[in-house]
């Protein structure tokens, strides 16, 4: 409890400062609405429509690949802390894990998952 008290306090203080920063304009700023001002900014051209539509599937693939690898990286942290106690056995086991991870990466690269040209 006492360990996390400073973190809780820092979180509260940071939330207060940042919260004030993003809302202060609504409190002290002037107000003037205008239909042209409210349009999406596209360098002065008339807006080309809503942005809430489909976009390249590549970004989803990158996100999925990231999820897989990030979980694997987090799995490596406990091993990294205890590497001296686990010794050669741990090294071999983690090695197999990393080789599997690399195989996954090579598979994804061969399937053109990361070709952006």
């Amino acid at each position, binding site marked *: 409890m006492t360990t996390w008290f400073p973190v809780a306090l820092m979180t509260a203080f940071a939330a207060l400062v940042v919260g004030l*920063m993003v809302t*202060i304009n609504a409190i002290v700023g002037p107000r003037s609405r205008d239909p042209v001002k409210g349009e999406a*900014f596209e360098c002065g051209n008339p807006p080309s429509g809503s942005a809430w539509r489909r976009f390249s599937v590549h970004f989803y693939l990158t996100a999925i690949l990231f999820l897989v690898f990030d979980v694997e990286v987090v799995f490596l942290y406990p091993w990294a802390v205890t590497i001296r106690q686990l010794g050669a056995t741990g*090294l071999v086991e983690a090695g197999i894990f990393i080789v599997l991870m690399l195989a996954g990466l090579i598979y994804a690269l061969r399937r053109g998952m990361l070709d952006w040209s």
Partner: protein
Amino acid sequence: MLIDLIISAIKAIFVVLLVLNLSAVLLWFERKGSALIQDRIGANRAGLFGIGRRLGLPNLGIINTFIADPLKIFTKEDFVPDRADKFLYTLAPFLALFPVLISFAPIPFGDRLIVGSHQIELVVCPLTAGILYILAALGLGVYGAALGGWASNNRWALLGSVRASAQLISYELTMGLSIIAVVMVYGTLDLQEICRAQSGTWFGWLPKWGIVYQPLGFLLLLVAGIAESRRIPFDLPEGESELVAGYFTEYSGGKQAAFMLADFAEIVLVSALISTLFFGGWQVPYLQSDGFHLPGGTWLPLSNPVVALLGFVAFGIKVVFFCWLQILIRWTLPRFRYDQLMTLGWKGLLPLGLVNLMVTAVAIVAVGGSV
């Protein structure tokens, strides 16, 4: 008990304010520094009732950056585009800056300071899983960029935000991998312990800093860190010549300031991480808890407050140095193409990070844990 709570409250508030102010100083430095690099004059207009001019002082744009601009920014209209999602539009800048600020909690800014019977650890919170906490908080930063562009309902902004998300998550892997290798060397996730382990010297003169064990890890963390703070050469999410301003195209006033400060606070965070993991954090070469022990065998005794202050100053100097380096890089290099960025992240840095990890692991196991 109460006094301990007050001390930790002071430390927490001090660190948040320090980071925000350092970010503002970096903004000023970026303005005047870039002007110097590009042979321009830079901000030099605003003054306070002409006092500086009457005294004959050069106008360094300090009043521009620290008084005039904040006043202007925070009294602007609260602008939300008509088609935007109003709640997420306000939440996004909050989610960009807030996680960066709280991720400074486990980073030590000095050794322990002894006041009377109190031992004050100069760190907001000595978490035993400090590195995981930082990575978790940094991961939240993606939401700021992703939501900012999406909530604006602007096509440029959306492009910027999907680019930013893909870039941030790609380079987060490299960041995680390069930090794992350091964790292996020191066998702990507690940043204060990592700092303590970097005291002393080899051969009587070479400081025992992490850079000597992990030179490749340092480079990987530096590159991934610059990519995480979305600056040139990795500023594709903002790319002003392509996307206006990327995911914060539609933002103005305090919300835009939050995005901007988030970028600078991330520079500070990356610098603090690099200094802590690879350059001894608050360690001063040859300084131990009772004074300087110079290579020649000379001993210069110092009291505890002086040692603690020297440590804090040393940490500050290291952090400011790496901030300066990142700003210099930003004004030296051109921007990558998007495919180059992704190729570098997935086909260059990620395999290098894995190789670095394996070599470190094999070396540690081979010498039987005596490193």
